[in-house]
């Protein structure tokens, strides 16, 4: 048994941590959040150069990692620094789907993603689908050599920056069936595709996407007709490892900020950390943080195992519960200062809590865990 990172991953972690602590300061990040695009192309390029994106892909795919622990190493660091750039969307989801399903021509995009020159977005969720991955009502119909797509996609993160959207649409089956879902690479400027863009609560941008008579060639299909669901499930599993690790990294920062504050903030003539009412609760946060760390380790370590989905449901449920505790307690123990937008913890707490709303909250993953455990 060995719980240490490999030498390569340790190096990646060190490099990333150093880079982010120097370059991704609170001021810098808050300026990025306030900017029109909600992301920094400069930071994106530099991180791509450091190999952050390459680490998320296997050697076959043109990267140098791609395993569960590569994902967790990268996203823990992104979480610690509260990074708002869409690595999840462009690399794990978008790049992941193309790498898994793309034909030779389409695989070229993976190289662009790894190099940092191409952004992608997954346009899958719909206004009524909530966290249900199979609920797709957008349709795709053949018209000669073309495919015509009709539908609406909700909260498509990184849509505005993306060169291509990976759009899920039904070519068969009812609204909930697992079969019949196809995936298409749709250029962002395709005619009939419109976006209503907006910033998000915890940074970054998303858009409501309307596909009105959007026409693409049949060669834009990723993988086989109607067979997209399995690949979607696989990239979402990877995304869940990333999200769990990211929230865990953010929890590390929240507890560290709280530790520093409890030791320096004085009220009634003494550091507030000397009040046992706070000291014990701070200890609880550390205890829960170790639980979270292990849950991420379980999920990352089982990414390629038969027990994958149950382990991931467990991790996301545990992270949702402990994350909320850490975020709320960290704010409470800081007092008013943590309520201010410019204070680091405010952003970190938002990152943690808002993780709930991507691919399922505590209840969703609890239900999945129960279902998978019974099976």
């Amino acid at each position, binding site marked *: 048994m060995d719980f240490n990172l490999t030498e390569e991953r340790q190096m990646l972690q060190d490099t990333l941590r150093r880079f982010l602590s120097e370059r991704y300061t609170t001021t810098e990040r808050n300026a990025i959040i306030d900017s029109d695009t909600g992301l920094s192309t400069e930071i994106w390029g530099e991180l791509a150069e450091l190999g952050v994106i390459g680490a998320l892909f296997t050697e076959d795919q043109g990267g140098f990692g791609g395993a569960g622990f590569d994902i967790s190493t990268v996203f823990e660091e992104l979480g610690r620094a509260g990074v708002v750039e869409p690595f999840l969307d462009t690399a794990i989801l978008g790049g992941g789907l193309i790498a898994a399903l793309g034909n030779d021509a389409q695989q070229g995009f993976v190289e662009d993603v790894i190099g940092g020159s191409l952004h992608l977005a997954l346009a899958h969720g719909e206004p009524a689908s909530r966290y249900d991955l199979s609920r797709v009502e957008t349709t795709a119909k053949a018209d000669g050599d073309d495919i015509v797509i009709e539908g609406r996609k909700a909260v498509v993160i990184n849509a505005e920056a993306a060169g291509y959207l990976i759009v899920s649409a039904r070519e068969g089956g009812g609204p909930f069936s697992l079969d019949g879902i196809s995936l298409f690479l749709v250029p962002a400027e395709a005619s009939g595709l419109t976006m209503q863009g907006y910033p998000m609560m915890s940074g970054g941008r998303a858009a409501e996407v309307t596909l009105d008579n959007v026409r693409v060639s049949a060669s834009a299909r990723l993988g086989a007709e109607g067979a997209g669901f399995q690949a979607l499930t696989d990239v979402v599993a990877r995304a869940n490892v990333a999200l769990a690790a990211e929230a865990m990294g953010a929890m590390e920062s929240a507890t560290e900020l709280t530790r520093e504050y409890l030791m320096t903030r004085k*009220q009634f003539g003494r550091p507030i950390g000397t009040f046992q009412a706070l000291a014990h609760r701070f200890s609880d946060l550390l205890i829960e943080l170790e639980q979270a760390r292990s849950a991420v380790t379980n999920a990352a370590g089982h990414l390629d195992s038969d027990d994958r989905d149950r382990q991931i449901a467990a991790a996301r449920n545990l992270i949702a519960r402990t994350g909320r505790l850490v975020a709320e307690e960290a704010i409470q123990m800081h007092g008013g200062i943590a309520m201010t937008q410019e*204070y680091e913890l405010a952003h970190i707490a938002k990152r943690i809590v808002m993780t709930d709303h991507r691919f399922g909250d505590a209840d969703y993953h609890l239900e999945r865990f129960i279902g998978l455990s019974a099976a």
Partner: protein
Amino acid sequence: MDLSYTQEELAFRDEVRTFLEEKLPKDMSDKIRRGEHIGKEGHELWHSILNEKGWLSYGWPKEFGGAEWNAVQRHIFEDECAAAYAPRIVPFGLSMLAPVLQKFGSKAQQDHYLPRILDGTNWWCQGYSEPGAGSDLASLKTRAVRDGDHYVVNGQKTWTTLGQYADWIFCLVRTDPDAKQQEGISFLLIDMNTPGIDVRPIILLDGTPEVNEVFFDNVRVPVENLVGEENKGWTYAKYLLTHERTGIAGVGFSRAGLDAVKRVARQESANGRPLIENPHFAARLAQVEIDLMAMSTTNLRIISQATAGQAPGVESSMLKVKGTIIRQEINDLARRAVGPYAMPFASEAVEGDNDPIGPDYAGPVAAQYFNNRKLSIFGGSNEIQRGIIAKVKMGG
């Protein structure tokens, strides 16, 4: 024991309901229901509607033109207002400053300031907290030095809620730096237009410019703006804290919030069924409702004791802690209920001049969840309240 309201109380409730149906502007309650802000004008309008009826001063004694309602009436009114999505009454002048002036102010101060609170001439804000003096308020440093018939004030206040709207601020200032902490503090009324005052906004984590820093640089305040005696300010500020606070549990807000979550959960679906039928979500909802039912009765028990002349003591602290936990839990449920549509940052939607993203009920829920973390921090944090309860019950 009888758990129901008396005939008179029921009649009073109906009177309040009718009033709200007739006089609460629909666009205003719609905004509150959607979690939007109504701005300074909105608050002033609602105050003036209440004032016209004589109900703005519902907590004030008759001798100052108040309605002098008892605790049950106040509770009924606050409950009905919350249920009707009426705006919150801005408390700084009406229920924080006014009781102090009525008890400790001079006749001249009462005659001058009280009518201006009611008719909306003055908007007050509360200048207690400082960067270094939060829970430990008595360690405040803002200094007021006597110079002829003025005090010269230097220092900084912070967290000043809606200070950007205010033209007056009531402040705790240090007038005797050598006395024991609590004994060198005075209560001063300061015109925000006096030279030397600088108000800077603090943006809260949900993006709202709700609080401010207020800086004082050689601000000259006439001595007649001192309330009561010099160096007795702490006593006056404490008086406010022991002053009956029927609304502290926020039962009405919780009930309205819970109803809103239920409405949303009927419209949202999970796995093709209404969310409200999802066993996990339903269990969370039920647990909060069970807690709220009990707390609502605790609240009424304490209110009826107060009406019978017994002043609530630690009960206020208990209600504050439980009340805020319940409200925050409801905010958390509201956030969960809307699923991915909690993610859009709806600052524009909150201001009400843009198309909503997703269902219109989704816009403000995440912001409210984060904003209401304040409930357990301000007004004496929940840790401070627990300290008070323990101290009273175990001596020491």
